[in-house]
């Protein structure tokens, strides 16, 4: 799901293109301006490569870590239909990680290096997955609203300039439409069900609203730096624009179900823009930096999975294997 990696705001625009061959840079930018895609072996500015690796890698990490909160309910999903769908959904997320790591690999960073950066905490993943799925309804809210947020991000990024990332996202978006429908169906079932079910889904929604508001990240500082990334079609929409789009599409659907959101200031103003209480960005930073309710567990579980699988991978490693960067 969840491609909301954010770009380091401290990078200076001038540094971004320092030392690049002006002729090649001009050709590169002209190609993107024409709407053509950049392919792995093309010349590209170092900063373009760096930002893309960071973004795609974080996106991949988010998929594999995102499999954990939802996986929490696999053995407990109620009934065949829900169980099979949840298994398929979590499987898709693992598949998305595979597709995204593969896309990032084409830029020259190996999957091993990316996993190492994940499990040591050097590389981030979407902050929402540091929160727990307490009840079945939490898993349903995640499947609907977190995936909805992810889709907004992914649909935007699918129009970006880097061919392998766009191709991965096209396929991912197709699968996400199943996730969204599945999540919505679940939430509707709970919201239109018994009083206990309604209470359960309302509680989950209330719990998840702050992380959902955090999902797209803080307002971007408009700088030359972000302008260049937008010109290069690395960043496709501002965080605030995506948040607005999300609110516009989903708040009415939530209210339709008679559910309430824990923000008294949430409303659409006369200009059609959504107003809301500013999310707690200190909490966001605190959790990003490791101090959320589940950060430690998520990474410990990933490390454990890598370690338990190591003997399998080592056994089948043959001496004549040779790593070559994937082609596309």
């Amino acid at each position, binding site marked *: 799901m969840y491609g909301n990696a954010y770009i380091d705001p401290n990078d200076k625009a001038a540094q971004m293109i320092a030392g690049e061959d002006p002729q090649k840079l001009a050709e590169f930018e002209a190609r993107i301006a024409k709407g053509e895609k950049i392919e792995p072996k093309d010349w590209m500015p170092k900063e373009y490569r760096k930002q893309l690796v960071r973004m795609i890698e974080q996106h991949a990490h988010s998929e594999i870590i995102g499999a954990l909160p939802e996986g929490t309910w696999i*053995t407990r999903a109620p009934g065949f239909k829900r169980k099979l769908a949840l298994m398929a959904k979590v499987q898709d997320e693992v598949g998305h990680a595979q597709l995204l790591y593969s896309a990032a690999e084409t830029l020259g960073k190996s999957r091993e290096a990316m996993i190492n950066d994940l499990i040591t905490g050097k590389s981030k993943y979407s902050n929402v997955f540091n929160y727990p799925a307490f009840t*079945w309804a939490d898993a349903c809210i995640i499947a609907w609203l977190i995936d909805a947020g992810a889709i907004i991000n992914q649909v935007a990024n699918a129009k970006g300039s880097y061919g392998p990332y766009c191709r991965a996202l096209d396929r991912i978006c197709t699968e996400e439409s199943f996730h969204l429908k599945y999540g919505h169906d679940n939430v509707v079932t709970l919201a239109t069900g018994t009083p206990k079910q309604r209470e359960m889904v309302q509680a989950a929604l209330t719990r998840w609203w702050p992380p959902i508001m955090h999902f797209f990240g803080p307002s971007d500082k408009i700088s030359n730096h972000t302008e260049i990334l937008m010109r290069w079609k690395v960043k496709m929409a501002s965080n605030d624009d995506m948040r607005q789009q999300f609110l516009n599409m989903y708040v009415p659907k939530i209210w339709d179900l008679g559910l309430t959101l824990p923000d008294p200031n949430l409303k659409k103003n006369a200009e059609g823009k959504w107003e809301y209480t500013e999310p707690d960005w200190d909490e966001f930073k605190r959790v990003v930096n490791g101090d959320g309710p589940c950060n430690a567990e998520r990474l410990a579980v990933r490390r454990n999975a890598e370690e338990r699988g190591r003997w399998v991978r080592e056994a089948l490693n043959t001496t004549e294997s040779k790593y070559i960067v994937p082609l596309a």
Partner: protein
Amino acid sequence: MNTQAIKELLYKMADDLLIIGHRNSEWTGLGPILEEDISFSSMAQDKIGQSQAIFQLLNDLGEQEPDTVAFMRGAAQFHNARFLELPNGEYDFSLVRHFLFDHADQLRFEALANSSYEPLAKVAKKVKGELKYHVFHANTWLVKLGQANENSHNRMQAALNQAWNYALGMFEESAHEDALITEGIFEGELALRDKWLATITPIILKAGLQIPASNEWQPIYGGRICQHTEHLSPLVEEMSEVFRYDPTAEW
């Protein structure tokens, strides 16, 4: 048709598939490499889907809804072989169990494709392709890891030793064995066990592994008569947890 005999056959098959499907699904997101995680999850989904199809046959014979039967019974009402409820352990044990169970499962369905009980024969024909993949997956892994390096060989051999008597327990005979055989519903557990041994032996040898000596074979029975290890009950409780939260609700 001997409905009682058919029901018992269906229950053990459905429960086997339901429980192994759940166990295998515990690897989702935690597998040894992303690609294998995806493959293993697909097969777990297939198992649970096959189980659903068989619970549907039971429903057609007058038992309760598949969801109710599958998710709302206590451990003491399950007919699965004990083998399948054991915790996953490490990937070696999970793969060996997958290998041993899926061969039995494939042969069982193969035989049932000719069953005189047509609804079951129909299901058996439908799942043929899925099982072919499962067995190909299992064989490939077993043969590769059985001889890849010393560590993997030792692990796979130890897992096979640990699994063996439990696996033999899959072929626990039912009180209705004769009825099933004479009415052409199912060839019977002993016939199935012979076929299974004949099928898996060459593959195990090809993997450089050894089947425990036959004088040490002591099938671990009990599952078919609802006697289980302590591992089943927590899983079964998890399976019904959400339903129990509000039994009047539709989920």
